[in-house]
């Protein structure tokens, strides 16, 4: 195997890892703060992709502009879902919370199928396939932007959780909800913000990766949910830098694994790595720390 091909695969794996990390960011936030396993996360990603396509086909709005509006819109939608169905379930055993999110996921898939039909839609920007040359490797702008945004979000949220008041409140609510409440933190409000921002991030990721993929109602579930959960657990739940590192590890492992062992065994390499890390570090690469 020539070194040049391995280098190409490594670089492309890093970009793919950025895409994974971007998808996993929102999930890690919700999981880390609320301890809710949000099985509907993938559907908020899919919704973001559909909204980006709708904005492009209806008004010619680039997904890089509409992404911000989609983020805000889905934040509100996620917060509403939290208030209506997740909050009442928080009092009940964790299995109930999971089932509630599965219910939300099923309803969202049905609604998206009604709205946009079952077939694939494609967002074809005039420059969807545009690439640039980096060290002899062709990289697509769409994936590079997704990667940079993932790095930016991971960094920004790390700072936010470490230094901002709301961020500290989030960490407090996650570490000990009772003590946080006694210190005057509204855990309910923190949860509302967390779920809203978490689902908003999923939709933002969806809008940013839309030009590189296609979308159908089960896209998120079929393509990204498994990888996102693996990354979140690998990188420690609730840790944004962890999600980025986890995403890169999985992206590179899949890329090199696929190249060396054949694409059919691509996931075997990344999941074997996942098992090894979990056996050695059961609480993830960052040993349970959020920041």
């Amino acid at each position, binding site marked *: 195997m020539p070194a040049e091909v391995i280098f190409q695969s490594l670089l*492309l794996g890093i970009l793919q890892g950025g895409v994974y990390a971007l998808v996993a960011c929102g999930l890690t936030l919700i999981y880390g703060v609320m301890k809710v396993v949000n099985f509907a996360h993938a559907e908020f990603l899919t919704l973001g992709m559909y909204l980006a396509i709708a904005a492009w086909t209806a008004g010619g709005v680039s997904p890089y502009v509409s992404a911000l509006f989609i983020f805000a819109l889905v934040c509100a939608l996620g917060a509403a879902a939290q208030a209506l169905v997740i909050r009442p379930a928080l009092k009940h055993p964790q299995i109930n919370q999971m089932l509630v999110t599965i219910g939300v996921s099923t309803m969202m898939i049905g609604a998206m199928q009604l709205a946009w039909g079952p077939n694939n839609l494609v967002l074809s920007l005039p420059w969807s*396939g545009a690439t640039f040359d980096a060290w002899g490797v062709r990289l697509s702008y769409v994936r590079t932007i997704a990667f940079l945004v993932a790095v930016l979000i991971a960094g920004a949220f790390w700072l936010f959780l470490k230094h901002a008041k709301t961020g500290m409140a989030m960490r407090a609510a996650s570490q000990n909800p009772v003590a946080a409440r006694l210190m005057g933190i509204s855990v309910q409000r923190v949860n509302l913000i967390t779920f809203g921002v978490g689902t908003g991030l999923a939709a933002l990721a969806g809008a940013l990766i839309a030009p590189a*993929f296609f979308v159908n109602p089960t896209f998120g579930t079929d*393509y990204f949910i498994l990888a996102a959960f693996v990354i979140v657990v690998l990188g420690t739940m609730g840790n944004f830098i962890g999600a980025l590192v986890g995403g890169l590890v999985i992206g590179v492992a899949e*890329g090199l694994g*696929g190249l060396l062992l*054949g694409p059919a065994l*691509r996931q075997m390499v990344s999941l074997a790595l996942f098992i090894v890390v979990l056996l050695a570090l059961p609480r993830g690469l960052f040993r349970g720390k959020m920041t």
Partner: protein
Amino acid sequence: MNHVRSKPNKPHASRRQFVKASAAAAAVAALPGGLAFAQANEIKIGFLLPLTGSFAEAGQLNKQAVEMAVDEINRAGGVKSLKGAKIVPLFANATSVDEANTETTRLISRERVTGIIGAYSSGSTISSTVIAERSSVPYLVPNALADEITARGLKYVFKTVPHFSQFATNAAEMVLQLSENAKRELKTCCLVRENNFFGNVVGREFAKYMPGFRIQILKDNIFPTNPTSFEDVILSLRRDSPDVVFAAGEPSSITLLFKQLSELRYWPKLGWVGLGGGYTNPITWGNLGKLADGLIVVNDWFPDIKLPGAREANERFRKRTGKDMLGNSNTTYAGVHIFKAALEKAGSTEGPKIRDALAGLDLVDGPQTFMYERVKFDPTGFMNRTTLVGAQVKGGQAKVIWPTAVRVADAAWPVPDWSKRT
């Protein structure tokens, strides 16, 4: 129903019972006459199709193709040699081998069908044809591809679609001829196929037949269902640098694959050939847009082919369903007309006579010429003149480019790589 039961009203109930009883009596009285009527003027044909489940969309389209053919036949006066008897299609759901077997038995013993057409999947067809054979009921196979369907010495089974193996043999003949015309050498290929039933059939058949065509398979790239990236496949193709790539997959994976092929600017030396399934689905071409230009796809038929009535048949089907007559609707539609021609020739509804008529059929005209120039079965019951055709996609349309006799456009071969496209 509950509120009726909780408030029994005797006079009404008895009146209802009376009405029911008299209706039943009337039905019984009418029955013998009705049956005699059906026997004289109707020919029941059983259709085994997956009407529900994961192949329901295809099954329902096939059902509409049957209805279109039956409507045409009955409107034109039915089967003339049988005093204008009308064809009555009986649809049976065949989503699994078990169901196909049960329904075949029911169609034969209870419905007393004259013949059976089906059963979409190869597995269901292989087992249900044996049941029909035991009862001497002719069985036409217009959509299941497995070679073994007609390789078991069954006397009542007739297959009008190409074999699985022809995806390898016809595709190889096509690319060799295109390369010869372009005076280019073709010695190597790679496979890019999804790890599913059809993908694995493609892998098996290509491994078996390519050596006979002196085409070396450099690498068989198998990708999992729902891949998030094809970069490893593309890097490996670039390293192997094959003359041609043969590929199979679903619309979603093909869409992602072609986006990444164009991003990484990889294209094989001569061209990319997609086999059946997702590659021949117009939805895929629509999703790919310009990326699909130059792609060569292989299937049993395309509406843009030089055969009489092809476009018209497709238009009629589009009017009914809003969809192109692809994905077996075309072969099923043709199959009904071929079976009708056999009935016409036999002038009888007896199984053995229809069987002999099918075996001796030699049709060069009739509605089925929109896709079959000549209908003639070999001793195994296979319509061995049938071949797969190749079409090249441009602007979201596939125009037939091979075999030469039915082509409507000349192939662009070698297919220009990304840098030479507009």
